[in-house]
């Protein structure tokens, strides 16, 4: 089987709905790497559809940004409740996290879209379709469930003596957490957050389940139309994913370095 064919089949595994296109793609004859730049290559097809793919990339970026933000706004307090809370709030938050982390993302998205039925959201300048808001809600809440565990771990990793020292100068518990523990925990959260960001970015492709055509789905649309350009399309969108994850991870690295707590030699 050709390289293009096996790639297309791999793609069809994750995008089952498109299996019919993948089968015909498997018939592509070329197999060598030279094919990518040689006469048989069809980059023109990719370029002609660049706008279409860019629209998908925009949706991918928008979904990722909104979901990560929602995930942070819900996940950070949730992590804090799991560390500092007690009783019912802690049990509720913990339980919700277990359910969200234990449910496949496709199921979460289908529930958001078809069961809960998130309405259209009007923001004045733009309106967000029910599918997009369901996507953001589903991806965002699942991300919150994972982010809560990042923050739970880093909040708990800050030595108790820090909180105690904060309280000893008269800060309330909340203030001591806010001014002493949180700034240290956030710094330690960056590596885990980089993981979570990358996962959310790539998982935005699953919104195809509720009919949204983001980058990967649009790519699949294209190569099912033109089964001779499967590898070109896949490589192109992979490159976009790579640039997005690489740039964001570097930005977070920079943030980590910029706010790193200086370490001396004489400890």
């Amino acid at each position: 089987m050709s390289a293009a064919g096996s790639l297309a089949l791999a793609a069809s595994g994750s995008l089952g709905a498109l299996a019919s296109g993948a089968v015909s793609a498997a018939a592509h004859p070329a197999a060598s790497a030279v094919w990518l730049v040689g006469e048989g290559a069809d980059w023109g097809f990719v370029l002609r559809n660049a706008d279409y793919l860019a629209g998908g990339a925009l949706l991918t970026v928008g979904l990722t940004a909104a979901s990560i933000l929602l995930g942070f706004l819900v996940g950070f307090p949730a992590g804090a409740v799991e560390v500092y809370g007690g009783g019912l709030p802690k049990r509720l938050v913990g339980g919700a996290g277990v359910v969200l982390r234990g449910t496949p993302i496709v199921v979460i998205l289908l529930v958001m879209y078809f069961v809960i039925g998130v309405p259209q959201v009007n923001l004045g300048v733009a309106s967000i379709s029910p599918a997009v808001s369901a996507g953001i809600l589903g991806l965002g809440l699942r991300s919150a469930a994972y982010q809560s565990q990042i923050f739970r771990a880093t909040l708990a990793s800050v030595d108790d003596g820090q909180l105690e020292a904060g309280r000893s100068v008269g800060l309330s518990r909340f203030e001591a957490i806010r001014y002493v523990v949180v700034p240290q925990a956030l710094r330690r959260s960056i590596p885990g957050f980089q993981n979570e960001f990358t996962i959310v970015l790539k998982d935005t492709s699953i919104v195809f389940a509720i009919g949204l055509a983001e980058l990967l789905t649009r790519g699949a649309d294209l190569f099912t139309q033109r089964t001779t350009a499967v590898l070109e399309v896949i490589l192109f969108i992979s490159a976009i994913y790579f640039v997005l994850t690489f740039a964001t991870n570097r930005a977070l690295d920079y943030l980590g370095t910029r706010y790193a707590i200086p370490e001396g030699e004489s400890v």
Partner: protein
Amino acid sequence: MSDADAFLRVTDVSKWYGDEQVLEDVSFEMDRGDVTVLIGPSGSGKSTMLRCVNRLAEAQEGSITLDGEEVLSPDTDVDELRREVGMVFQSFNLFAHLTATGNVALGPRRVLGLSEDGARDRAAAQLERVGLGDQLDSYPAELSGGQQQRVGIARALAMEPKLMLFDEPTSALDPELIGEVLEVMRGLVDEGMTMLVVTHEMSFARAVADEIVFLDDGRVVERGPPEQLFERPEKERTGRFLERIASHD
């Protein structure tokens, strides 16, 4: 309160961790400007006793009055109490993400409500006071243990406390760094600061204490002025402890 009443009065304080009693009817008192040193073997309850005074640990029985106010009452505002009682920790517990100035300024800024500049000025003055005027912008990890502990002292002093608690302030330090911390503490004694100190530094205790309280097994075995307690301990247990300590000095 009557004028004759002690500034800090600890009366029959008892505390349990589960079934295990760690403090048993501990009583002592100190006047304003006094230096009281708690000594005793590890696990004797000295640190726990100290921490009960600013309620970082909760005593279950007894009474502690500070300036006539009951500390252990459920109505006591613990944040208010801690504003007035400075604490220095064995492991420094400096805020790792803040500079020396940031460490000292946090309380004045967030608790006393000073302006950003006001808090920084106060921090600088307190760091100057402990001999760290040249380390204002250093982070804890950039400082030696002795310097870190002096920042810890400055942090407590910046709240202008009426009582300072020292929980084994030199126990985590290399021997050559102990002196600079004790020197700062001696300076505070000279200024008339009221200090309750847990330490194993017997020569320091002897030199500055008005009273030594010897705790063992959560109970006060003996208390008295240093010359009496060190030279002529009344209880055999006190003598044995002091001998053991001396042989390690």
